[in-house]
């Protein structure tokens, strides 16, 4: 990966082993500050594990992670997780309404979310105010993903980790969310790290891309590498996805 940019997150020989299974194998690389980097690769490549490490939900069994040039262990976990927000793949919801979920990040800090702000966040992700008091167990998969994205934005993190946040959305909603994330990236200089299975999305939205397979970082560079991968394994993967 080019080092023209200051890294928002730097990983040095990061490995993660659980029950003798190597989920991540000595990953070294950086996510440039203020840029969108996509993580692509087949299921089981270790992408979600990597994202959870950057948010502090998991710790490497070997190696080091630095956030804004500070070792991740220097951060208080709660501070780190507000600074590095994550939208989890399953879009989990707490019991209650959409408003309860949107207010959650602030409630955890003893603060309140105004109704006006909540509506604005909903509008940002393409949901109208009629959703505000709807129980989350009545939402579709796509609506849950949108609420999950809105909730992640509330902490106004300077680094956003997005785990397949558009997998359950229709084409129009995907475009709306892509536009929203691009705006957040440009307007507020927020660093975005986005796991996607959609290579077209990686090409159009991402500035950079990481290709991961079997817990290893196989290839990194500008997103255009996905058009003509130099690594034969990546070429095979790209061909398989596009087929």
């Amino acid at each position: 990966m080019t080092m023209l940019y200051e890294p928002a997150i730097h990983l040095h020989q990061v490995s993660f082993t659980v029950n003798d299974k190597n989920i991540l194998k000595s990953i070294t690389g950086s996510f440039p500050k203020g840029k969108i980097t996509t993580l692509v690769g087949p299921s089981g490549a270790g992408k979600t594990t990597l994202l959870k490490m950057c948010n502090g939900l998991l710790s490497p069994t070997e190696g080091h992670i630095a956030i804004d040039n500070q070792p991740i262990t220097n951060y208080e976990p709660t501070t780190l997780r507000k600074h590095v927000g994550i939208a989890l793949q399953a879009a989990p919801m707490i019991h209650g309404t959409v408003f309860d979920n949107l207010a959650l990040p602030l409630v955890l800090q003893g603060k309140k979310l105004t109704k006006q702000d909540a509506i604005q966040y909903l509008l940002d992700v393409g949901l109208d105010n009629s959703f505000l008091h709807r129980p989350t167990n009545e939402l579709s998969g796509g609506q849950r993903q949108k609420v999950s994205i809105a909730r992640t934005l509330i902490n106004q993190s300077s680094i956003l980790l997005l785990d397949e946040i558009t997998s359950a959305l229709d084409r129009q909603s995907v475009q709306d969310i892509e536009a929203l994330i691009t705006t957040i990236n440009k307007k507020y200089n927020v660093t975005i790290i986005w796991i996607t299975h959609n290579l077209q999305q990686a090409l159009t939205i991402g500035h950079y891309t990481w290709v991961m397979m079997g817990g290893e970082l196989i290839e990194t560079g500008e997103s255009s590498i996905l058009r003509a991968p130099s690594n034969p394994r990546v070429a095979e993967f790209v061909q398989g996805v596009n087929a």
Partner: protein
Amino acid sequence: MTYTSLSLTLIFVLIPLVLSKTFKLGLEKDTVIATIRSIIQLLAVGYILKFVFDAGSTIYIFLMVALMILAATLNARKKGKGIKGITWKIVFTLVTVEIVTQGVLLGFGIVPTTAQYIIPISGMLIGNSMVLSILFLNRFTAEITSHQNEIELILSLGGTPKQAIHRQLINAIKASMIPTIESQKTIGLVQLPGMMSGQIIGGADPIQAVQFQLLIIFALLTTATLSSIMIGFLSYPVLFNDRLQMLEMK
């Protein structure tokens, strides 16, 4: 009751044995084992209690209570296998429950300071505390397993372990206390409690028996609340490490 009369009560063991055989329930072996165990255990306790009461020594009372706490702990800890240090957490809870309840009963002179009162009452309170601990641990571990995503979500947003597990903790505490509270609502209407029935059969004045039963059910409320809350608040911190990450329950 004569030994002949007692022997005749074995008819109540023969009935389930015959029914189990007839309907192929396969419970004959367990029924026989349960019967033999109950005879041996109760006779042993009877002789031990007789010895302790006759001896009138405080040290024997302490030993009996310690034995009860040990047996209750060994039984309850099976349900909290995934929680580090659960044995000592249960011991601490049971000891606290015993000190608080007996402290009030003996401290205010509500019951006499004799083995005849302390041991049976301790048995009831520790037994109830053990059941509450089992109910709590059973529900708490199930709640954590089924709501792992929710707990992870709250941690990921910058919440503390206490915030992340609050709902599961409260649900488990409430669920474990429901049987105690519900059974007290219908006490005397549906069934006469065992201790009260025993006293009445033994020839005691029914009003006196009711007074003792009230003493017990009020004490059981404290036992239930203390047990669930203590086990809960002692258990949840060990489910997380110092980086506020949830540990796998083994």
